[in-house]
């Protein structure tokens, strides 16, 4: 529009990102602010599906990052635009520190005596979890199906659940409160994190610069440090 900041990397940049990207995007936002005096980056996190729906409804967002291609397609299908994958990820079997439930493998998720938390199948982490369980031939007995991956993580951090499936990066972000166990089948079902400069963004130049930061060496380093895989 006629915002004088439209062509320069300054102003109030709004970034919406999937819950699993909370820590890394927050860090990179600070980095972008340090690099560009005059730029302020506002972030909001949530379930990919919810954020995507808000962008389609006209939320004044500049950049959107989701936890799956499917959710991104609902946006580009409505508004157009060219998403670019900035990182990849995969699930781990996670348990509270000390493993109070004595969980050893994916098959324990079928134990009705254990309290098991999973993502709802409608959100990206839940869809991937269903895929992983199917490949392993495990019929899980979950006690709750959560709204996003961080909600599953919170169940484990609070020790309300004995086991769950979350991203490897979430286990790292939990900083010792949760222990992760690699699951062979999870490596076969990686998930991608696409980023999009929202068509019609109020600050297109700054948005493009931010996405460039994400895909550039600094972004790579930050994602790697947080445990994400390369695109």
């Amino acid at each position: 529009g006629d915002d004088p900041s439209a062509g320069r990397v300054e102003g109030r940049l709004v970034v919406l990102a999937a819950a699993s990207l909370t820590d890394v995007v927050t860090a990179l936002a600070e980095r972008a602010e340090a690099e560009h005096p005059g730029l302020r980056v506002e972030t909001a996190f949530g379930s990919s599906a919810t954020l995507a729906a808000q962008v389609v409804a006209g939320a004044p967002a500049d950049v959107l990052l989701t936890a799956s291609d499917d959710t991104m397609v609902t946006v580009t299908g409505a508004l157009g635009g060219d998403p670019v994958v900035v990182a990849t990820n995969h699930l781990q079997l996670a348990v509270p520190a000390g493993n109070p439930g004595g969980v050893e493998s994916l098959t324990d998720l079928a134990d009705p005596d254990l309290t098991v938390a999973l993502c709802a199948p409608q959100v990206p982490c839940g869809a991937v979890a269903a895929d992983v369980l199917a490949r392993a031939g495990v019929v899980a007995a979950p006690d709750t199906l959560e709204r996003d991956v961080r909600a599953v993580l919170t169940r484990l951090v609070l020790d309300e659940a004995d086991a769950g499936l979350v991203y490897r990066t979430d286990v790292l972000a939990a900083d010792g409160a949760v222990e992760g166990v690699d699951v062979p089948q999870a490596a076969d079902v990686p998930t991608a994190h696409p980023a999009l400069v929202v068509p019609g963004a109020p600050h297109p130049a700054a948005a493009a610069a931010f996405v460039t930061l994400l895909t550039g060496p600094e972004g790579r380093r930050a994602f790697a440090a947080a445990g994400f895989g390369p695109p």
Partner: protein
Amino acid sequence: MVLAAAAGVAVLVLPLVALLLATPWGDLPALVADPAVLQALRLSLGTATAATGVSLLVGVPLAWVLAHDDLRGVRLLRALVTVPLVLPPVVGGVALLLLLGRRGLLGGALHAWTGVSVPFTSVAVVLAQVFVSLPFLVLAVEGALRGADRRRALAAQTLGASPGYVLRRVTLPAVAPGVAAGAALCFTRALGEFGATVTFAGSFPGTTRTMPLAVYQAMDTAPDQAVAMSVLLLALSVTVLVALRGRWLGGLPGTGAGTGRRASR
């Protein structure tokens, strides 16, 4: 006056109209007859009814205590009781977890001694609903009790009636509209409860996934079903409210066709 009232109606009703216009009426029967929807509906009705019952049992006496602010500490107590109104429900859910979770203040001991764990059960849903909806009942009933005529309560005392008897036979019947409004508020609030339930009780079909959780779940992925369930919830509440108010208020003073003459004598 009437203009302002009309503005109020517009704010509340127009969004509902938009919702109704967006409803896929043709597919509605199929969407609603889905076993998952019916299961959520059954669960919601059961838990909200239980929560309202519990709230009436403990809330009316509580309101009565609060209405006597000559008692010490009542003002602070009222404020405390009102807190769940302002607490984001999600935080309420966390507070319940901190109390009754496996590591919780009471839940830890409970789990250690009996092996019972409250979260992820229908009991947890009812507790979450009581936590968020009880204050509405309490405040509505308290407001009515305060408005009630103290003079009649005094007259009853001179006739040998104990405070509890006065409450049951004189004060409550006189404030029945307030109690009915409070119970309706409480029921509907329980029916719509989301944040505390999802946090404290989790979300699992049949045990903890009430209608609002089912709607939320469907919202981003199956919007048609979400809208259909919303419309169902809406129809349900309109029915309940019409029926409830009709029954409860029918025989009360000043609400019928009479002029309410000498209501104060």
